[in-house]
């Protein structure tokens, strides 16, 4: 049987990768993709817990469904924002967009 910690560590690594991507990528779409990775890592943990802790009555899976719904909403709004950025700045590199500074 696969130990629970395997899944958790895998989730942790993917989450950290996502964090790294979100922190460093210049392309806004790439940042969104990194965030999706993070959400997925969280989902993996949820589902792993739901599998290994049967007394939780699949709460983990229910929450994974909510996370997926939220991720869908986030992607839709995020991409709309990216398109808006592109229309106004002709670029999607977030470090070139710094109008909101002092």
């Amino acid at each position: 049987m696969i130990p629970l910690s395997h899944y958790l560590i895998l989730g942790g690594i993917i989450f950290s990768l996502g964090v790294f991507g979100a922190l460093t990528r210049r392309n806004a779409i790439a940042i969104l993709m990194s965030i999706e990775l993070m959400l997925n890592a969280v989902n993996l943990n949820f589902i792993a817990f739901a599998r290994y802790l049967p007394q939780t009555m699949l709460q983990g899976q229910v929450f994974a469904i909510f996370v997926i719904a939220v991720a869908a909403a986030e992607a839709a709004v995020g991409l709309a924002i990216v398109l808006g950025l592109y229309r106004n700045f002709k670029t999607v590199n977030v470090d070139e967009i710094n109008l909101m500074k002092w």
Partner: protein
Amino acid sequence: MTLKLGIFYFLAAFTLWAAAVVVLGKNIVRSAVALIFGFCGMAALYVLLDAEFLAAVQVLIYVGGITILLLFAIMLTSRIGVTTARVVNDQVILSAIAAIGLLVGLIYASTSGIPAMSGPPRLPETAPFLGRALLTTYALPFEAVSVLLLAAMVGAIVLARKE
């Protein structure tokens, strides 16, 4: 038993590779394609965790919906063959420290304090159970999420519309 572990390691490696390409790849489209593979690998891991329904939902929504949106946005905002000189910004080192620090914390949390549990040999069919749970115990969050989706849809339309 070892076979299942082997499958897990294979899927984990595949997913990690895909995730790494997503985060580190130079070409944004390649990243997106790798993201699709990553999602599929994740879905396979869900199947390994007896969550077939969620695996199908994952493929349906992430692959069939979100990545298509992503590819759409990529096509509208970048051109083929034009690879920017830098794909990362100038806070890589600090970010790497933060990410690795987070990773260490997560691994520490994952390995300590959690006993090596093994769930029931096989979960019963989950889809009806989830359906019932969503409409009874979790009815309120369910409605909240549907309102959120509606709001997101309206917001996205308003944002993306040309004046």
